[in-house]
């Protein structure tokens, strides 16, 4: 038991990630509003549809705002709750659009005493109105006293909705894969340096598990792409490059089964493994930046994780990385031991 503490840790973390990742609810958010454009200088009645909201409870204290910037805010003079997930707010849109523009994009913010605030960024566009409209000045409203609540819930994001949970599967799988590959490369270098064949054997099994992880990473990424981009596979540069990276490790596995001379095969495997590990970085981190891509972290998009992750998500995300890494080590160890037993038996006969 003393040496197996990490396996127990792995099982606990894995169960925690699965349970927390699937069962923790999302924070309330605003899904849609019933119109996309409005005219300046006219009254506006806006119906918003919420997600995970409890607007019928304590409906008298709900407030809502349209926000252009920190200082330019329009507060609704009347809020009417239709149901738990539907509410109507009435605004008086001022007739002047700041900075002399033709139109402005405003966000809708709804604050609820128990749910906390919900935001729909760029909810609608306000266009310049007709000259004959009555002149309504900008009110001096400000967003104050938001009911921020500390609760264990994942943030609500508008394009990805519930698939934000994929952050605990897609991203940590790739990170655990890199961890396994680093370890495999260390074993490969040790093998080339010292010549202990079991080191190479370990590296091979670690790389095989990394290949499985990478394939799962592509599969989870495809599910996410189907939801967020609309198709499972659109030959996005990041998808293409990760497919190529996987092909490189398929080639690595091919070497093992197509070279008869054992010592040559082990040397070639180790060398190709190191070479492939080096080539991963131009594949996944240099080339994708040079082409337009939908994937976060390439083509100028920000990487997911810096801004989009809050502390609740980190509480599941980091354990997920550790859990998958330990699980990978465990799988590699089992497969390594099996192969070692087979080879020793073969040698004895």
């Amino acid at each position, binding site marked *: 038991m003393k040496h197996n503490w990490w396996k127990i840790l792995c099982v606990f973390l894995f169960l925690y990630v699965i349970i927390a990742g699937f069962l923790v609810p999302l924070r309330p958010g605003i899904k849609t509003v019933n119109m996309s454009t409005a005219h300046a200088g006219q009254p506006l009645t806006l119906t918003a549809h919420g997600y995970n909201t409890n607007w019928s409870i304590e409906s008298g204290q709900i407030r809502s705002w349209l926000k252009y910037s920190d200082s330019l805010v329009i507060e609704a003079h009347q809020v009417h709750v239709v149901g738990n997930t539907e509410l109507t707010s009435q605004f008086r849109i001022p007739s002047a659009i700041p900075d002399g523009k033709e139109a402005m994009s405003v966000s809708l913010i709804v604050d609820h005493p128990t749910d906390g605030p919900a935001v729909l960024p760029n909810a609608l566009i306000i266009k310049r109105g007709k000259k004959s409209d009555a002149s309504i000045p900008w009110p001096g409203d400000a967003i104050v006293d938001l009911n921020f609540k500390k609760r264990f819930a994942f943030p609500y994001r508008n394009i990805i909705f519930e698939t934000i949970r994929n952050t605990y599967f897609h991203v940590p799988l790739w990170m655990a894969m890199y961890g396994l590959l680093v370890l495999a490369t260390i074993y490969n270098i040790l093998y080339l340096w010292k010549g202990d064949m079991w080191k190479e054997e370990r590296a091979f099994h670690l790389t095989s598990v990394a290949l499985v992880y990478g394939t799962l990473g592509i599969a989870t990424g495809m599910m996410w792409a189907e939801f967020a981009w609309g198709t499972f596979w659109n030959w996005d540069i990041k998808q293409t490059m990760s497919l*190529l990276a996987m092909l490189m490790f*398929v080639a690595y596995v*091919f070497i093992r089964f197509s070279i008869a001379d054992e010592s040559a095969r082990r040397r070639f495997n180790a060398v190709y493994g190191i070479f492939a590990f080096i080539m991963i970085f131009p594949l996944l981190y240099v080339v994708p930046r040079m082409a337009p891509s939908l994937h976060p972290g390439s083509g100028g998009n920000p990487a997911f994780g810096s801004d989009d992750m809050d502390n609740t998500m980190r509480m599941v995300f980091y354990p997920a990385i550790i859990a998958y890494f330990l699980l990978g080590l465990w799988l590699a160890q089992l497969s390594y031991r099996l192969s070692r037993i087979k080879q020793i038996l073969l040698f004895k006969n």
Partner: protein
Amino acid sequence: MYGSLIRKDIKSELRRPQFVLGVIFFQFCLLFLFFLFQDGDLDSRWWANLFWVNLLIAAMSLVLKNFSQESADEYAYYYQLTDPITIYIAKASYNLMLLLFAAAINFILFQLLFEPKSVNHPRFMVLLFTGVLGMSLSLTLVAFMAGFARNASVMIYILVLPIIIPMFLLLIRSTMDAVDDIYINWLGDLTLVIGIDVLMLAAGIGLFPYLWRR
């Protein structure tokens, strides 16, 4: 030492020129097929793609043949004669010359068969050289491994393609721009290709001694 190793390779190649001539013939046949289908009219995208793919197929056969014609005894002799890094660099330089020759033939065939494009020649030559350098560096390393496999000609495709495709994507894109003579970040692409070349050279020098060891 480098000189004599390269000279030996050139001599043995010249003694049996059928193979190189065969590869050139193959290049010609492939391009002629395209010529018949395309009526001699290729847009820059097809031009760049076809140029590099044709060159890659020829290069794989040429480099693989260079390794598979030598026996294990010859390798043992080299091993006594000099150190593996010298052999790697000599082999890579010889392959570079061979591939530059193949590239020149390829380019001439393209100019003959397809209507001459407004190629920005200096830029294209720089791209061609960096690309062929990367190909020879990686192919030398990988063809040596593939030469040991039972199905060497299949193995070399499996081993080389994933490694070389990222470089090819950059090369084809910037060749397209060079053929159209437009400038979209071609220096950035060129820097990346040179970076990959340096990476391959470092990997080759670092790893080839371990392949060579008996």
